[in-house]
C-alpha cells in the first residue's frame, strides 16, 4: 500500500512566517511538499471558520504561523490568534477530535530553517496519526 501522505493547510502571516517560508526557499532548505500555504496579512485574521473549513475539506492538519509574541506587525494580532486557537482546540477536544492536528507556531522572517523543520516535523507526526477522521465521515 502506498504510504499515507498527509495534507497540511498553512495560514501564514505576511510579515513573519510567510517571509520565513520564502527564506527557506532562498536558502534552498528542503522540506516535504505536503504543505499548501495560504497567505494572510496577520494571524489575527485567521477566522476559526478557516481552520474548520480546511479540516472539513480534507486537510489532515492545519498550521497557523505568525510573528513571535511582541513582534506582530499589527501590534497584537498574534495574541488574538493564540486566544482563538486555544478556544477552538478546547471545543474540538470536547467533541473528541484530536486537537493536535492544529498547530500554532511563532516563526519569524529570519527563521527559514525553523519553518522547514516545523513542516517536516508536522508531516511526520501526522503520518503517525493517520488521515483526518472527518474525511471518512464525508465518505459515508
Amino acid at each position, binding site marked *: 500500500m502506498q504510504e499515507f501522505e498527509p*495534507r497540511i*493547510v498553512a495560514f501564514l502571516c*505576511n*510579515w513573519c512566517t*510567510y*517571509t520565513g*517560508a*520564502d527564506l*527557506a*526557499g*532562498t*536558502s*534552498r*532548505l*528542503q*522540506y*516535504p*511538499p505536503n504543505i*499548501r*500555504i*495560504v*497567505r*494572510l*496579512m*496577520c494571524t*489575527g*485574521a*485567521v*477566522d*476559526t*471558520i*478557516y481552520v474548520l*473549513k*480546511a479540516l472539513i*475539506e480534507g*486537510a489532515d492538519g492545519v498550521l497557523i504561523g505568525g510573528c513571535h509574541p*511582541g*513582534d506582530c*506587525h*499589527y*501590534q*497584537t*494580532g498574534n495574541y*488574538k490568534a493564540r486566544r*482563538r486557537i486555544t478556544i477552538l482546540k478546547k471545543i474540538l477536544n470536547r467533541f473528541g477530535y484530536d486537537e493536535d492536528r492544529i498547530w500554532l507556531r511563532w516563526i519569524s*522572517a*529570519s527563521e527559514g530553517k525553523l519553518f*522547514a523543520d516545523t513542516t517536516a516535523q508536522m508531516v511526520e507526526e501526522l503520518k503517525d496519526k493517520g488521515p483526518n477522521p472527518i474525511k471518512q465521515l464525508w465518505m459515508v
Partner: protein
Amino acid sequence: MHKKAMVIGGGIAGIQAALDLGEMGVETYLVEKGPSVGGRMAQLDKTFPTNDCAMCILSPKLVEVGSHPYVTIVSNAEVLSLEGSPCNFRVKVLKKPRYVDEDKCTGCGICMSKCPIKIPDPYNKGLSQTKCIRIPFPQAVPAIPIMDKETCRYHLTGKCRVCEKFCEVKAIDFEQKEQVLELEVGSVILACGSQEFNASLKNEYGYKLFPNVVTSIEFERILSASGPTSGHVVRPSDGKEPKRIAILQCVGSRETQAGNEHCSAICCMQAAKDAIITQEHLPEVQTAIFYMDVRAYGKGFDRFVDMAKEQHKTRFICGRIASVESNPHTDTLLIQYITQEGIINREEFDLLVLSVGLEPSESSMDAARRLVVFMDTRGFLETNTFRPVNTTRPGVFSCGSISGPKDIPESVMEASGAASAAAALLGELQSKEIRFEYPQELDIRGIPPRVGVFICRCGINIASTVDVPQVVEYVSRLPGVKHAQELLFACAQDSQKIIKAAIEEKGLNRIVVSACTPRTHEPMFQKTLKESGVNPYLFEFANIREQCSWVHQKEPEKATEKAKDLTRNSIVKVVFAEPLYKETLDVKKEALIIGGGLAGMTAALDLAEQNFQVHLVEKEKELGGNLRHVHTTLKGEESAPILKALDEEVNKNPRIKLYMNARIREISGYIGNFKTVLDPPLSEIEHGVVIIASGGEEYQPKEYLYGEDDRVVTQRELEDMLNGSDKSKLSSLATVVMIQCVGSRDDERTYCSRVCCSNAIKNAIKLKELNPRPAVYVLFRDIRTYGLKESFYRSAREKGIIFIRYDKEEKPDVHKNSNGLAVDVRDKILNKTLAINPDLLVLSAGIIPNPENKLLSQFLKVPLDPDGFFLEAHVKLRPVDFATDGVFVCGLAHYPKDIGETIAQARAAAGRAATVLSKDTIEAEGKVSYIREERCNGCGACVEVCVYNAIELDTEKRIATINEALCKGCGACAATCLASAIDLKGFRNEQILEALEAI
C-alpha cells in the same frame, strides 16, 4: 534654472539614482554607454549574504526605470562635454547607432533568431555565442536589439539583410548615423562604475593559457541559470562537473607588480558565495579558497563565511598560489601553494577561479575627463571623506564604484545620497503630483471572469523542478481560465508586453501569475494590469519558487502537483476578487529625525535644504554623537571644524527644530501622518516620515585587564590622547601592542565592527609620526582595510608597524609580571609564542548597537537583526528603507560604518524621505476592512479589537464605521465579527473559503 538632472551610467547605482530623482519629481536622463541598463549586477548569479538571485531583485528595478514617466533612458550613448554652471549645465551626448529604430522596434526578437552570424556573447563573457543582432539579455531595458556592425554580413559584404526582411515593423535601419544630442540639466550624477582587472596580466596563473582557469565573473555566468551552460556547473575543457575547485583571491588587487594596490572590497564575499552556490549545484564538490585576509566586514558577512566553512565544506587556506600547471592530457590543474606557516603544498584541482579585482574603467575615466572632475592617482574619482557623493566640480555628484570599489548596497546608498544632493541643488521642487497616465479602467460589472494565467519558468529556477508545461496544460482546463501560458522570466519587460497583449486579445479581466514571492514582484505586475486598464486588485500571485521549486528540488513530481494546487488556489481567489480603489492621504511635509549625531545632522540639513521642516531629537545635551571622539579621518582630515560647522548650521537653520536632552515617549500613525510625543517638552508633533539615526556605542571591554590596569586603553581613548594634552606621555613609549577584534567576531557578537582595523592603523601611524622609536605591534585576525583603505595598511607596514595574526581559538594572553604588562601571542609564521612587554596596550573595542534600539523598534514596528542593529527592507537594494513605509535608517543604527559611509547613508535616507515628502498626497492601502451595514448589529467587538482606533460605533445608526485612512488591513476585526458583517478587501471570507475548497 533647469529643473532636470542627468545620471551617467546605467548600472545599479545609476538606476537607483535616476529612480529616486524621478520619484522626487525631477525629470532625469539616464545615459548608458551599452545597449541596456543593468550593469554588472545583471551578470551576477546570486548576491551575498542572502543568496538572493541577482536578476530576480534587479529586474523589477529595470522595469521600473524603463517605464518611469520622469526617467528617459538614453542608451548606447556617451557624454561628450559638460558646459555651464550648476543649475545651468549644457550637456552634449553622442548617441551611437544601433541600426535598429528604437521607436518602431517591438522587441519581438525575430531578427535575432534569423540572423546567420554568430558572435561570442559579451553578456556571457564569451563563454557562449549569440547573434550579431541581439537583445543583450532577456530582461534587457530597453528590450531592443543592437547590431554589431563589425561582424554584420551586410555591413561587411553588402549582402544579407535577412533581419530586415523578417522585421514586420520595418525597424532595421542599416543607414542609422551617430547623433549628437544637446541637453540642458541642472545637476549631474556620475555613476559609470568600474571594470574587472584583466587576468591575462597575471600570466603565472594560466588564464587564457589553460582552459580550466576562469575569472570570477566568468564563473558567475557558469553558475547562472541564464548562463552559457544553463546553470550546470561544468569546466570549460571537457564539459564535466568539477570535483575540486580552487578560488584564488586578490588577483590584480593588493599588489603592485601587474595589478592594483587597492583592495577590491567585494571579492572575499563573492568567493564565499560562489563556494556555497557551487556546493548547492554539486553536493560532492570540494572548494578551497586561497586568501590573504578574509574581508567579511559588512552586515551578516561573517555569519555567511562561517556558513561556507561549516555547512558547505569550504576550505579557507591562508596562502598564495605560487604556480599553476595544466596536465595537457586531462586539463587538470596542478597547483603549488605556500601556506602562512611557510609549507609548500602541491594539489590537483579541476577548475581554478581567479577572483579578479575592480579597477577604474577606461570609460569612467573618459567621462571624468570630459566632465572635468578630478581623479586620484589610481583613476578613481577624488572625494572628500566628509563629502562622499560630491566630486571636485560643483553640481556634479558621484555614486557607486567610480569612486572606489564597493558592493551593491554601498552603491545603492550612495546613489540615493547623490540623488538627494542633486535634488537639493535644484532647490524646492514644484511638488508636482507624479501622475502616471493609465488607461480608463475596464468596468467588469456583470462580466463573467476571464482569467489569464502566466506560469514563470524563472530560467531554470522553477522549470528544473516543476514541469511547467504540465501546469499550463492543467490550469488551462480550469473553469474561468481563458488563457494560460508559460514565460521564461515573467518579470522581464517583454513578458509584460506579452501579458498586456493577452489581456487585449482575449479580453482577460483577471490575472494570475505563478512565479516567485508576491512580496517583491506583486507591485510590478499590478502596474502591468493598470496599464492594460485592469484593476490591480484583480490579480493573484502563486508562489511556486520560494515555496515550491526551491524547497522540493528532489521531488519534481510532487512539486509539480503542488504548483498546480497553488495556482488553482490563486485562480479561485482571483475569480472571487473585486476591484479595489485606494484612498489618498495628505502628507505632512515634516520629518522626525531620531539622533543628533553625524548621520542625523547630515540628514536634517539635506531635508531642510529641500525646504522641509525637520524635528531633530537628541538624547544628550550636545550634538555630534560619536563624531566628538573621532579627531581625524584615516586620510588625515580634521573632524573638529566639520563638527563645529555642522553644529552651527543645524542650530541656525530656521527649518530645523532641535529637541535636546529629549526622548521619544510614543509614536503613532503611518506614512504621511505620524504623531510623536517627545519628553521634554511632552508635546505632540506631527510629521510625515521618520529617520532613525540612533547611533551605536563603543564596546566596554571586560577582557585583557581593561579597567584593572591604567596601561590598558581602548582605541578611542588612545585617539583622545593622541589629539590632546597627553601627547608627551606617548612620546616616551618604547613598546605598544594593539589587539584587534575585542568584543567583535566572538561567540557573543559574531559580527565584524568594520572600522577597527582602519582605526588601529590610523592611530598606529600617528604614534609612529609622533615618535618613530617605539615598536608597534598589531595583533589581528584579518586586517580588513577594504577598498581604498588598503593603501594605509601598506604605509603602516612601510613605517615598520608589525602585524601578527592570531586565531579566535588562540587569543593573545595578557597578564602582569615583574616586567609590567605581558602579552603572549602565538605567531604562526615563526611557529613560536612571542612574549611582548608593552608600555601601552590598546584594545580595538568593537561597536555595539544602541541599547535603545529595541524600544524604538517596538515604537515603529520595524525589525532588528540578530545583533541588535536595525534590519532594513532589503540588504541589497533597499539599504535605508523598512518594510514599513515612511521609516528610514542611517548611520550606526544600521551597522558599524565609517564617516564617509555614514554621511552617504544619511544623505540616502534624506533622499528616500524626500521621495515621500515631495508629494502632496500618497495612496493609502487598498486592502482595508469594510462593513456590510445590513449585517452589523452594533455589538462593538470590532471597536475593541482594533489597535489602530480605526473603527467607531455610530451611536445613531447603531452600527460600526471604519476610517479607511487609519485601517492597516490586518483583518482582526473581520475574524472577530460574529455576524460576518466585516470583511477585509482582498482577503474576503468568501475568497478564502472558496480557495480552501480548491486546496
